[in-house]
């Protein structure tokens, strides 16, 4: 029974840590499936976190308890608009996609902190007054064992993230848009010959990744950090990128990987209270997600194949 108690105590925390990663990783899946590498996920999360916190601070009194939901939406939209920059560079200007992603990351942090300095006169905002609160889902949380494990003391955003993952799976594998998206990422020339606009699909995919990463950043800001500063988002975007690869570019796989990373993170925080982990130095739990990702890539945990045309700008007429 001890194991179940452990899961009961740790599961809400796992869901809480993994939600931002799930959203962002789904964004990564869309972008990379269309053949655009998106190292800029980190910067897009920064934009999402920044704009949701600013919105929340400014409009908390106007919208009351509706504020965090609207802030979530604003975070997604701002990051979506910001991601157009990556799309323009990577798709239209044939830029090196990794480099453009690095520029996005630098730009997002620079711009975010610059504006915070300009608007608030300091490098870190105050804490927001209208964050998300943990809730128990009615009825479902009354189920014995599972109810307490999965449906009580979590944020609604965690469940939305999981629903989004299922939706993304449906879109990518069961709709004609998804088929086009995948074909553009595997063999853009063949797709182009069949009358699919590579440019259009890639723009849509990159903007989708911006929206989702913004949602991820906003979720992180509104549930975990509750304020914005230079170090609010430090590495979650790269972690999400790892989840994309660990999940083999599949939305449900990415979700699974994100939950696993959340689990590792929850263990590294709660590990000290668990008898069988008390003697394990924390550092092993902290680096576990990264080491496992490398092992997964090296083919020790099943081979991870990237979409064929990932990272290649598509230049019409060239072979």
């Amino acid at each position, binding site marked *: 029974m001890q194991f179940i108690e452990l899961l009961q105590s740790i599961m809400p925390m796992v869901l809480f840590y993994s939600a931002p990663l799930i959203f962002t990783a789904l964004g990564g899946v869309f972008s990379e499936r269309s053949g655009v590498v998106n190292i800029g996920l980190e910067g897009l999360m920064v934009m999402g976190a920044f704009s949701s916190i600013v919105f929340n601070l400014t409009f908390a009194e106007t919208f009351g308890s509706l504020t965090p939901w609207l802030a979530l939406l604003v975070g997604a939209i701002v990051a979506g608009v910001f991601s157009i920059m990556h799309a323009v560079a990577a798709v239209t200007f044939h830029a090196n996609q990794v480099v453009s992603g690095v520029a996005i990351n630098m730009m997002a942090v620079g711009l975010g902190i610059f504006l915070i300095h300009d608007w608030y006169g300091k490098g870190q905002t105050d804490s927001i007054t209208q964050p998300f609160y943990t809730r128990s889902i009615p009825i479902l949380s009354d189920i014995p064992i599972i109810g307490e494990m999965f449906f009580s003391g979590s944020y609604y955003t965690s469940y939305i993230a999981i629903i989004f993952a299922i939706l993304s799976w449906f879109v990518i594998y069961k709709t004609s848009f998804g088929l086009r998206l995948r074909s553009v990422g595997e063999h853009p020339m063949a797709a182009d010959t069949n009358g699919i606009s590579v440019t259009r699909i890639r723009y849509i995919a990159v903007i989708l990744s911006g929206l989702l990463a913004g949602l991820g950043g906003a979720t992180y800001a509104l549930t975990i950090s509750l304020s914005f500063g230079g170090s609010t988002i430090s590495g979650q975007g790269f972690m999400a990128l790892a989840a994309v690869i660990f999940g083999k570019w599949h939305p449900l796989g990415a979700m699974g990987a994100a939950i696993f990373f959340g689990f590792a993170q929850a263990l590294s925080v709660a590990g000290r209270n668990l008898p069988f982990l008390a003697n394990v130095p924390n550092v092993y739990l902290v680096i576990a997600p990264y080491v496992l990702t490398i092992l997964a890539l090296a*083919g020790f945990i099943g081979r991870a194949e990237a979409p064929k045309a990932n990272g290649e700008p598509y230049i019409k007429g060239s072979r």
Partner: protein
Amino acid sequence: MFSSRLFNILIPVISVVMGLIVGAIIMLSFGYNPIEGYVALWNGAFGNMYFLGETIRQSTPLILTGLSIAFAFRSGLFNIGAEGQVFIGWVAAVWVGINFDLPLVIHVPLAILIASLAGGFWGFIPGLLKATRGVHEVIVTIMMNYIALHVTNYMIRNVLSENGDTSERIKETASLRSDGLTELFGYSQVHWGFIIALILALFMWFLLEKTTIGYELRAVGYNKHAAHYSGMSVKRNIMMAMIIAGAFAGVAGAMEGLGTFGYMYTHASYTNLGFDGIAVALLGANTAIGSVLAAILFGALKVGALRMPPLAGVPTELVDIVIAVIIFFVASSYIIRWVLLRFKKGER
């Protein structure tokens, strides 16, 4: 017609100008005076010996991370892992600095050598995985960065100190600082590492352009298949390129450990030396001399930025935006090329 050599010089120059123009527009639109802002920036970077010393100090590790990324680029690899290699080199140099008792002429080179080996090892792992299992080096190096961050933090707390957030100070014999130099540059943090960085830049130029090893590395970077066909070992060259790239970044870490700080402290996140190194390498067109010039530019921007808030009221982060815009334009050189050629056609 534009020659490719002219393009190689024009593109970075245009990108820098565009970056500064965007910076000026941002300052204007937020009600700051861009002239005041840039004057403060200039004086903060070169205004007197102290600021000049700081600019040199800031440029030193940037030259080395720039070389690291440029070197890997020339061999067809993208070393995003300089960030982690800096951490590992830093911790290794500080470890040697604390734990050995040696005369200066041996202690300093030994510490730098160990740092380069440690950084080289950190580059070897992604190189090995790339060469033997075909794993993309970008993702592995990103992961290695995080592992380095957490492992070095752990080492500082448990090996280099007793649960503290900073290591002990290195012995005087391992320090790159000297009283004469410090005094000359108005008691800034400048150290002799600058000379080491310049020597290594020369070394990289020589290795790439004048030796068989460099020729093979570049050949693999241009076209793996052709290199393989002409009997070069692609795998060996990939591993070697990553080891050397890692070693450069490791020495950058040693500069921080033996020069600027003289100890190491736990980091909550990256030093950004590695990511800025990407900007340096790109702007420097992946050449040794270009990296040196670009590193001095970015070093000056970063140090000068610190004088912008007190003198012109402009937040320092403006410079990060300027640097991001510069990289953005260099990365999109295709469009600059296109516009220039259009322009040229119009003239006729």
